[in-house]
């Protein structure tokens, strides 16, 4: 019983982090219909920026969240507006090829800037743990989970209650109607991408404090985001959370009861089953109802 509880707790903690790492990918997919293959590199840029800022400012890496998110927001807007949108206008597959190419280029730029060596962010509580009801909690992973939940909640509230959120939802649901109502759709697309990039950067900080990272890891985080979105559904923080938690729990349960070599097997098996049985994910497309 204790072992199952510990495994579930570990899975939930891991899943929360997966969820945050995927939410930006999910939002772009849901609103812009773009599969952003440079998502993983945005996550890693967040991790590297957190490392730089936390060392330069001598602060806890989680405190660099606003700064990192601001930088990625500022970079994400022109990236979508002036590059991705042009590719989208040319062809349906153009955006995939473009984001893939950008990911490759940025990976090499990062190697040039930071070297290919692994880096890690080590906050003061990196090695702390605590026990509750006989279960061991890794403090750094729990803090990462809390940060993930807070950020996902913030994004959910932004989308639901703010003027920007309303415009994003309106554009995602009925692009033509939104345009007829005077919404500047290209601007909203770019803003959506910028918000997603900012959340990818935030995920990078959270990932950076729990895992060593290097520029070569970018594909892993794009792939994980893809799986989470297929499992949970497109376009909403709730879908990303459900998909992430499911992925985390499946990973740890598989590792514990089938074998540590098999989480990827069950992960992709689940992916295939979902694509066959419920291709829109557990929560479906957040914007599909009114399309």
């Amino acid at each position, binding site marked *: 019983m204790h*072992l199952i509880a*510990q*495994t579930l707790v*570990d899975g939930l903690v*891991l899943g929360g982090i997966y969820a945050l790492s995927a939410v930006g990918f999910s939002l772009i997919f849901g609103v812009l219909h773009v599969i952003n293959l440079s998502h993983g590199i945005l996550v890693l840029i967040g991790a590297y920026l957190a490392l730089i800022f936390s060392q330069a400012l001598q602060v806890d890496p989680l405190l660099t969240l606003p700064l990192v998110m601001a930088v990625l927001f500022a970079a994400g807007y022109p990236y979508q507006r002036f590059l991705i949108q042009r590719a989208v206008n040319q062809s349906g597959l153009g955006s995939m090829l473009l984001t893939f190419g950008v990911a490759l280029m940025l*990976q*090499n730029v990062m*190697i040039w800037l930071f*070297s*290919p*060596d*692994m*880096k*890690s962010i*080590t906050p003061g509580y*990196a*090695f*702390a*743990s605590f026990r509750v009801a006989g279960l*061991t909690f*890794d*403090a*750094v*992973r729990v803090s990462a989970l809390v940060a993930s939940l807070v950020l996902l909640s913030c994004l959910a509230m932004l989308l639901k209650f703010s003027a920007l959120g309303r415009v994003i939802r309106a554009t995602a649901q009925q692009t033509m109607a939104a345009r007829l109502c005077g919404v500047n759709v290209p601007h909203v697309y770019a803003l959506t991408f910028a918000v997603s990039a900012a959340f990818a950067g935030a995920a990078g900080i959270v990932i950076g404090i*729990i*895992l*060593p*990272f*290097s*520029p*070569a*890891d970018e594909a*892993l985080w794009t792939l994980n985001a893809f799986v989470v979105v297929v499992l949970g559904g497109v376009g909403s923080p709730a879908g990303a959370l459900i998909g992430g938690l499911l992925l985390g729990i499946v*990973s*740890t349960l598989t*590792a*514990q009861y089938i*074998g*540590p*070599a*098999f*989480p*990827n097997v069950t992960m992709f098996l689940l992916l295939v089953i979902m694509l066959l049985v419920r291709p829109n994910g557990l929560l479906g497309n957040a914007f599909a109802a009114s399309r």
Partner: protein
Amino acid sequence: MKRRDVLLGAATLAAPAIRSAQAQTHKTLVFGGSVPLTGAAAETGLNVNNGYLTATKYLNELLGGVEIGGEKYRIQLKLFDDASDPARATTLIQRQIDDGTDFFLGSFGSNIVLPTAAITERAHKPMVQTGGGSDAIFTRGFKYVFGMYPRATRQFAAAAALFKTLHPTPQSYSVIYTNDAFSKTAAEGVKLSCDAAGLKRLDTYELPQKPTDVSSVLGSVRSKTPDLLICVMHDEDSLLIARQMVATRTNVKLLFQGLGPQLASFRAALGKYSEALLCSTYWDESVPYKDKFFGNSKQFADYYHSKFTRPIAYHTAGAAACILTYILAMQAANSIDPKAVRDALAAADFETFYSRIKFTPQGDGDPLLMGGMVAQVQKGKLETVFPVAAKTADPIYPAPPWDKKA
């Protein structure tokens, strides 16, 4: 003057220059190959590349080239970034063979070295490499590939010998490895060596190639705690395990991580928790070997530091030794014919600053002469603790629990 006379005159005038250029071309010794400068293996790939560059620069600039068969040669490297991708590496190697390259240096990672070695083998071109230890490279009957380490299943013999000398003698071990060509065969080596040393194996854990969480494995380790926990995987994964072990207070008497603690960045990331971690190493500046090129290890390291700011690693020294090994073999063969050089490499028994070089009939390093050493982190520095002849400190055993290191 007729046009034909002008051309003839020009050709006559240019003839010495052409001859000189041809002579210079003939005196250039080209080493081809690929190295992972980007992608997953780039961290160590860069160390390997720096080793190749260091030896080439030194031999060309300080020694003015090398003499083989009465002729002076300058060394030229034609190394390309394979992006840690075996498919790309094989394309690059095949293209170089088509272009006439006769001698190859190895990439890093058994998953790349194995398919590229198959290509050079088919073309009967030698490859000397410091990046592939998987048994698969040395058990397929290849005659033209040579490695600077023993094959993976033989690499753990030194560590197992060390374990037998510890007091109180460790009784049990568990092994964790990732699902990749090198780690899997290295784990086989761990099991062979430790079982032969009389240690009881409690568990074997295979992780995916790129793990993100090892909580469940560490839970099992806590419930069935071995004296020794042996991790065979690449640096980044070793760090993940060490960090999660500290955070969950998963204590064992000794943690051995095949790759990881040898890197300064790894030790810095773990801080005081890196104390007493063990790892394999194949070279450090204090090894007693000498050669006619660099003199000794210290001089090699000094020259390296004068050219590069990147910390030196044993892969760097191994890579430089690949080139020295080639030169010594060519001098022994008195030829740069690939077949003659291959035969000289197979018969090699000479000393470089890196180690005494002697290959098994299958091409991997002689396990006694080129086998690994065991190093331990002590006060933040890497100290050699085995073999006795090379040791710079006594091993700390049992290692203090994580709480005591805090």
